[in-house]
C-alpha cells in the first residue's frame, strides 16, 4: 500500500522531471495556495486504473499555462490559441500522472483515462494536495486513491 508521503514524493519528482525535460522549466514545491487562488486555475482531471485506482487533478495559473504551451509548441505566447493551451496542459497532466504512477507501480498494469478539462470549483476533500511554484506561476496537484484493486 502506497503511503501519502510516497505519493507526494512521486508526484513532485514526476512534475519536476516533466517540466525540466519537456519545457526546460523548474518547479519548486511550495505551500498550498489559498483556495480562492486555486479556483482561478485552469484544471485537468485524469482517472486511473490498475494496481492503484483513483483520480489525478492538476491546476495551472493562466500565465503559466500559456507560457508552457508557447514553450512546448515553439511559439510566442501571443501566437498560442486557447485550444492549444488546453491541449498542452492536458498533455502535461498526462505526463505527470503517468510518470508518477509508473514510479510507484512499476510492476503493475496501469491505465490512464483521457485527460479532460475540469471545473476547478470542485471539492478537494479526500485529495492529497501539493503545490509547485515556477517563475511563470503556480501549479497545484491533487490525487485521490480509491480503496481496493481491479
Amino acid at each position: 500500500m502506497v503511503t501519502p508521503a510516497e505519493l507526494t514524493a512521486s508526484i513532485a519528482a514526476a512534475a519536476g522531471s516533466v517540466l525540466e525535460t519537456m519545457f526546460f522549466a523548474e518547479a519548486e514545491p511550495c505551500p498550498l495556495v489559498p483556495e480562492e487562488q486555486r479556483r482561478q486555475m485552469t484544471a485537468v482531471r485524469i482517472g486511473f486504473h490498475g494496481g492503484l485506482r483513483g483520480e489525478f487533478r492538476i491546476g495551472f495559473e493562466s500565465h503559466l499555462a500559456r507560457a508552457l504551451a508557447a514553450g512546448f509548441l515553439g511559439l510566442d505566447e501571443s501566437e498560442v490559441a486557447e485550444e492549444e493551451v488546453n491541449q498542452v496542459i492536458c498533455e502535461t497532466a498526462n505526463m505527470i500522472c503517468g510518470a508518477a504512477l509508473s514510479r510507484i507501480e512499476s510492476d503493475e498494469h496501469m491505465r490512464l483515462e483521457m485527460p479532460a478539462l475540469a471545473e476547478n470549483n470542485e471539492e478537494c476533500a479526500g485529495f492529497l494536495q501539493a503545490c509547485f511554484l515556477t517563475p511563470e506561476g503556480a501549479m497545484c496537484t491533487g490525487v485521490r486513491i480509491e480503496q481496493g484493486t481491479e
Partner: protein
Amino acid sequence: MAYRVLLVDDSPAMRSFIRRVMVLSGFDLDACVEAGDGAEALEHLRQEKVDVILTDINMPCMDGEELLRRLSEDSDLRDIPAIVVSTDSTKPRILRMIGLGAQGYIAKPFSPESLREALEKVLGCPV
C-alpha cells in the same frame, strides 16, 4: 538519407512537439505524416510508405496496442519499425508492447537525445 516518419498521437500538441524535436536534433526528416489514432495511421500506411512509426498507446478509437497488433498481422506493414512513445513506463506495458513488435520504447517525459538514439537504433544508422 532523409526519412519518412509516421507520428501517431491523439494530441496535436505532442505531435507538433515531437516533429520539432526531430528537426532541432538534426534528424534528417523527409516527411512527417501525422495520425490521431491507430485507425487513421493504418489508412495513411495503405497509401504511402514510411521508414519508421512513432506511436502513443492511449488513444481513442484504435489505441497503440491494437495498431501494433494490426501491423504484425499485415505482411505489407509488419517490417516497418515502430517505436512506442508513452507516459506508461510500467514493466508489464513495456513487455507487452515489445511482444507485439515494438522495436523501441520511449517513456514521456523524454529528452531530444533519447528520441534520436531510439531512431538511430531502429533505423540502423546515425540519423
